[in-house]
């Protein structure tokens, strides 16, 4: 338990360490970097091996990424599906780009809520995956109808629309239920970190007008022409309001950053009450954008967990962390 700080100047490889760890667990980069950039130039593969203490168990996680080939993910030396690893090693990652959950396009908010659902259990995780796959099926059907080559036609559309509607309605229900559980925790955290008694409200903005099945039917002709599905949870949005004002457009950058952090932290607390232990916390360089008082509050919140933070600002954290590692030119000193 406790906070480990990885300290170093820019470009020394601080973030690479926690990016490797987070990539091994989640299967993607928190910077959105492509897989090939995880592999050294002129090399064919890269390997991450991590001894992880999570959920009262010691786990050995091994990932080998292969250029142009399929990857290998082993948990305690057994090949393990990605989704099982994600749930076995709960992880909360904070990065500077988190602000986009508040300030960015709706896609960022959907990604946040769906990634959170995946951690909530296999049923929710299956729903997220199923909906994604059904959307792909539908888009292939729409394109086939558009070309009129007839391999998959209206009879397939009928069937897959029905599945899509069922799975889509279920996904919306799960997102709503998760939001309603996040909201009270979010309020408490935001008030604490922002230091003001401001009220945060979340509201879900559906693209569905009546119900998903009849909307799919109504938009069918247009959808075929455009080759995309124009209605469903993949077109929904979430609005965060601070004291009644839409945080995406009307909050300051500082407020947006604090709100994004509180959101991630709220999910973290929710996961803790679900699994009875803090998820592992990774904080990538987030201190550069927070003032001293907020850093203090953030670190206080992470005290009970295993946390790894990277920072280039050495002096700010000395007193507050349990362990400090200095990194230079890619190696620990």
């Amino acid at each position, binding site marked *: 338990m406790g906070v480990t700080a990885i300290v170093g100047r820019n470009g020394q490889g601080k973030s690479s360490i926690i990016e490797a760890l987070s990539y091994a667990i989640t299967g993607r980069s928190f910077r959105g970097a492509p897989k090939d950039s995880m592999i050294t130039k002129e090399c064919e593969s890269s390997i991450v091996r991590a001894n992880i203490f999570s959920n009262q168990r010691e786990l050995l996680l091994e990932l080998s990424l292969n250029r142009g*080939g*399929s990857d290998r993910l082993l948990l305690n030396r057994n090949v393990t599906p990605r989704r099982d690893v994600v749930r076995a090693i709960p992880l909360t990652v904070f990065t500077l780009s988190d602000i986009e959950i508040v300030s960015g396009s709706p896609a960022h908010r959907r990604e946040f809520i769906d990634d959170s659902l995946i951690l909530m*259990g*296999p*049923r929710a995780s*299956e729903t997220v995956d*199923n909906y994604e*796959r*059904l959307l*792909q*099926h*539908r888009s*292939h*059907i729409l394109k*086939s109808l558009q070309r009129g080559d*007839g*391999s*998959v*036609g209206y*009879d*397939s559309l009928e*069937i*897959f629309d*029905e*599945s899509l509607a069922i799975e889509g309605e279920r996904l919306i229900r799960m997102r709503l239920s998760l939001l309603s559980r996040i909201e009270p925790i979010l309020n408490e955290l935001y008030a604490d970190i922002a230091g003001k008694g401001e009220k945060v409200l979340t509201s879900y903005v559906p693209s569905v007008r009546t119900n998903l099945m009849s909307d799919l039917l109504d938009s069918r002709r247009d959808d075929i022409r455009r080759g995309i599905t124009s209605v469903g949870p993949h077109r929904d949005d979430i609005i965060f309001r601070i004291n009644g004002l839409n945080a995406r457009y009307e909050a300051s950058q500082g407020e947006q950053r604090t709100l994004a952090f509180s959101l991630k932290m709220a999910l973290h607390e929710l996961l803790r009450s679900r699994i009875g232990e803090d998820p592992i916390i990774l904080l990538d360089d987030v201190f550069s954008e927070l003032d001293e008082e907020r850093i203090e509050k953030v670190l206080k919140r992470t005290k009970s967990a295993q946390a790894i933070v990277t920072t280039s600002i050495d002096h700010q954290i000395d007193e507050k962390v349990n362990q400090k590692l200095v990194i230079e030119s890619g190696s620990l000193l």
Partner: protein
Amino acid sequence: MQALIDEFSKLPGIGPKSAQRISFYLLRSEQGESDRLAKSILEAKRTIKWCQRCFNLSEEDLCAICIDPERDSTTICVVEEPKDLIAIERTREFKGLYHVLQGALNPIEGVGPEQLRIRELMARLSDAAIDEVIICTNPNIEGEATSMYLARMISPTGIKVSRIASGLPVGGDLEYADELTLGRALEGRRDMA
């Protein structure tokens, strides 16, 4: 040599490294071994075809199950692939006939109803006296969609359509069942009154 490796790496489940290993193994093995392998492949390709009624693998026009007079010809079990048929045969619980769809609806891969043996199934249902069709497609998105499609096609004929249940493995403890399986088993619970 490269040609051989390329051919192997086209096979399902075999990557470039395994293809290389197999190729080197064959080169180093006795002549007889690779002759037997080549002969078995040619022989299988030449003699094994699809059963004309159920589209299972068969050496004759009709497969061993379709011509067996002991089988109950009023019940048809619909599966995706011959390997599913083999799995159900191993249970020894099913005495009826089969119909192999040779896949499941999968628009991503361009598979619609026309690419499956559905028309042939409907023809069988209208020709012979069938009482029940049991749909045993996989419990995934594509298998479920296929079963919905079949149910919709078959219902108007008045023939009973059922779907295989999903539930708990036998001999296991409830506490070790994964949440998905347990959830499905609850959904598909049975009335005991």
